[in-house]
């Protein structure tokens, strides 16, 4: 009998608040499935929650893609948050603690950067935003 096939690539469309919960729940499940500790899975789920909310808040809709990333040295989860919203005019400002153009506490992106092992954001005014963040198993 073949082992059950592992879902290694999950796309969650972000269009409503419930999708934020759905994205982080699926991210946690994927992390546990490949052997993350509950603590690390919680860090990942929290980061996904922030990224999904940013999409909803600033772009209205977009997508969170969760995939298992594997190379010879290690295995982990890659999170790609993508939207075609207005984009971030000043990315380095958005990555500073305490900055928010929405008026709420601006801990979204810098917080995600602290939670994840690697973090990369690309954005330009009028061109949407792509954030790629990864967390390794160990």
């Amino acid at each position: 009998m073949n082992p059950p096939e592992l879902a290694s690539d999950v796309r969650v469309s972000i269009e409503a608040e419930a999708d934020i919960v759905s994205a982080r729940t699926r991210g946690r499940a994927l992390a546990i499935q490949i052997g993350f500790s509950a603590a690390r899975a919680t860090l990942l789920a929290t980061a996904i929650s922030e990224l999904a909310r940013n999409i909803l808040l600033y772009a209205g809709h977009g997508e969170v893609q969760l995939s298992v990333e594997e190379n010879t040295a290690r295995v982990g989860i890659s999170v790609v948050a993508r939207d075609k919203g207005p984009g971030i005019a000043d990315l380095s400002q958005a990555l500073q603690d305490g900055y928010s153009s929405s008026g709420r506490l601006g801990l979204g992106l810098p917080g995600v950067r602290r939670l994840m092992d690697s973090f990369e954001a690309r954005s330009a005014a009028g061109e949407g935003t792509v954030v790629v963040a990864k967390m390794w198993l160990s």
Partner: protein
Amino acid sequence: MQVPILKQGPYLIATIQAALTDSDILQLRDALVRQVERHRARGVIIDVTALDVLDSFATGTLRDIAQMIRLRGAETVIVGIQPDVALAMTQMGLVLEGVTTTLDLEEALEYFHRKLRLQTVDRR
């Protein structure tokens, strides 16, 4: 998902039972502020044991709730933040400044009993 709010003596106890959307958390805030007024509650206990994520929005709203309840003359205690959740909050830099937290419901009730007793003594 609506969060049930129980009245027990001078306290209101809100027990979150599953993951909440942002609107659910805002609804909880509004319901608590209204009910503190209606029941003349002295304390509010919010049990977050069931939450596996407290992100910036949830943390910010819990802080708002505590502040609003304080302005209404009562106090809020947050109960049951899970160890993994505490780790994630800390790593992100999220703080619950000025909000009392306890490990469980029993401790929260003890905290309030002690506090209200002290206040009664002070008034003599």
